């Protein structure tokens, strides 16, 4: 009986000992390297001795001969990781992803998530309980509109967030409200205001429990200075449930 208990205890504890610490933040962006493109990530880890958290050396997650942008690395509650990006192949850009099981070292082969239309860009992911919601800007012929898909046991069909219009709709970004509503915002052009403005929409989710308060205050988060200029960078906060990510886009500074 004692032996069985010990074996059970070891089996229970070993995975925990092996498990890596959840990073405070993960930044992903695209770099060019000898005429190829690569998605790289750097993790912000808590220091064990009570020192300031440290950004780790960037690691390459994916390479391609085609231009890529809008990279997003998401860890699900199961420990599975999903990496999303937009890739330009010839004159079209599509949404792609690949996955890595909990504790696995190898990624799956890249898979196209959405290749219809001429332009798909600006992938933005949100964990909603066990689901993953992915928003992006998509156009068939004219200017882009916002679409989304939900991954549960499989991927849902793509849905439109708003009716087609004659202005660009792009850069979707989603958060979860404390009561579990998906709060989506994106950039759209207003001819009335003669400027780009923020559009907003709330979408019901299937969550029936309150969403935990965030661990990290995203609004006060200090963006690290080593991030590249002239690139879109996504910073995700795996410990947050409401504000899960932010995007940084910097011109060259004086």
């Amino acid at each position, binding site marked *: 009986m004692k032996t069985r208990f010990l074996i059970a205890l070891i089996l229970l504890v070993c995975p925990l000992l092996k498990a890596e610490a959840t990073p405070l933040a993960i930044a992903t962006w695209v770099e060019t390297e000898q005429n190829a493109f690569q998605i790289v990530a750097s993790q912000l880890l808590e220091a064990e001795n009570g020192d300031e958290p440290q950004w780790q050396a960037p690691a390459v997650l994916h390479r391609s001969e085609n231009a890529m942008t809008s990279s997003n690395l998401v860890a699900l509650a199961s420990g599975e990781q999903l990496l999303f990006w937009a890739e330009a192949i010839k004159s079209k850009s599509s949404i792609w992803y690949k996955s890595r099981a909990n504790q696995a070292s190898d990624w799956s082969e890249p898979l196209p998530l959405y290749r219809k239309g*001429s*332009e798909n*860009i600006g992938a933005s992911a949100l964990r909603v309980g066990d689901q993953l919601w992915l928003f992006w800007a998509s156009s068939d012929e004219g200017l*882009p509109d916002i679409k989304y898909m939900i991954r549960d046991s499989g991927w849902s069909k793509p849905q439109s967030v708003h009716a087609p219009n004659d202005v660009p709709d792009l*850069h979707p970004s989603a958060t979860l409200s404390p009561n579990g509503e998906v709060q989506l915002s994106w950039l759209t052009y207003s001819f009335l205001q003669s400027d780009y403005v923020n559009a907003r929409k709330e979408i019901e989710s299937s969550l029936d429990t309150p969403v935990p308060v965030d661990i990290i205050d995203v609004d006060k988060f200090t963006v690290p200075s080593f991030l590249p200029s002239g*690139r879109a960078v996504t910073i995700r906060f795996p410990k947050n449930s409401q504000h899960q990510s932010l995007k940084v886009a910097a*011109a060259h500074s004086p």
Partner: protein
Amino acid sequence: MKSKILVQLAGAVLLLSAACAEAKAEDPNVVAVFGDSTSLGFNTNFPGGGFRFGMGQLNFLPPSIELTKILNGSRRNSVVPNLGWGGTASGPAESRNNNNINGVDRISGNLSDVKRDNPGKAYYVLIMYGVNDFNFGIPASTTGFNNRLMIDRANAQGFTALVSSIIPCDICGNSASFVNTVNSSIRSNVQQRINAGADAYFVDNFAAVRPLWNPALPNSYVDPDGIHPTDEGYAVIARNWFSSRLEQLIEQDPLTITPIIGLLLDDD
């Protein structure tokens, strides 16, 4: 004799006052270059440091220097403020930091500053924007739309807008076919504004530099960094701006007339 001198003096005064009244006609044409690092003039010859914007400086970096030479060398008195800003996109990217500089947001303010600092007889802006857009998550169709907005904002400031295709950038996310998509979007949006009565023109700088856009070629137009034009590449672009449109739009200054006041005062 005295009366002759008086008549000559009166004539000289009249001529001088006429010259003073026409001083404004001698104000230069103001031709601002506006865009990202490929308008600024960045390449490996860039003079060090981290700063990558023009802030309206005259005779600053190859695009401004070359155009100033060409315009003034062809008797078109002109100044060329450099409004290039490295690493920027045509329109806003999603961002929570405050360094999201872009063409649509800054064009009105920048052109207003140029007008304040450079009294001119005519104003032109040479817009070349969009090579960084894909990296910021801005699709080709929106790049064209943003160029349309910049035309309207430039016209509202009293500037004639010359809008260029983007130049090749094989390693910054733009395959040849993707650049073609961006450029056809820019071209169709410029045409749409022209059809609506805007004061705008399309200039194809992509076609001007493409033949020697290969770092392996001698006299290549692309810098060893693989992204930006060489100094000669910038000179080619400047010549193309001029020969495509500026040469027709900006009239040559009249030939200088030998001062005649001295002749009038010559007592004989």
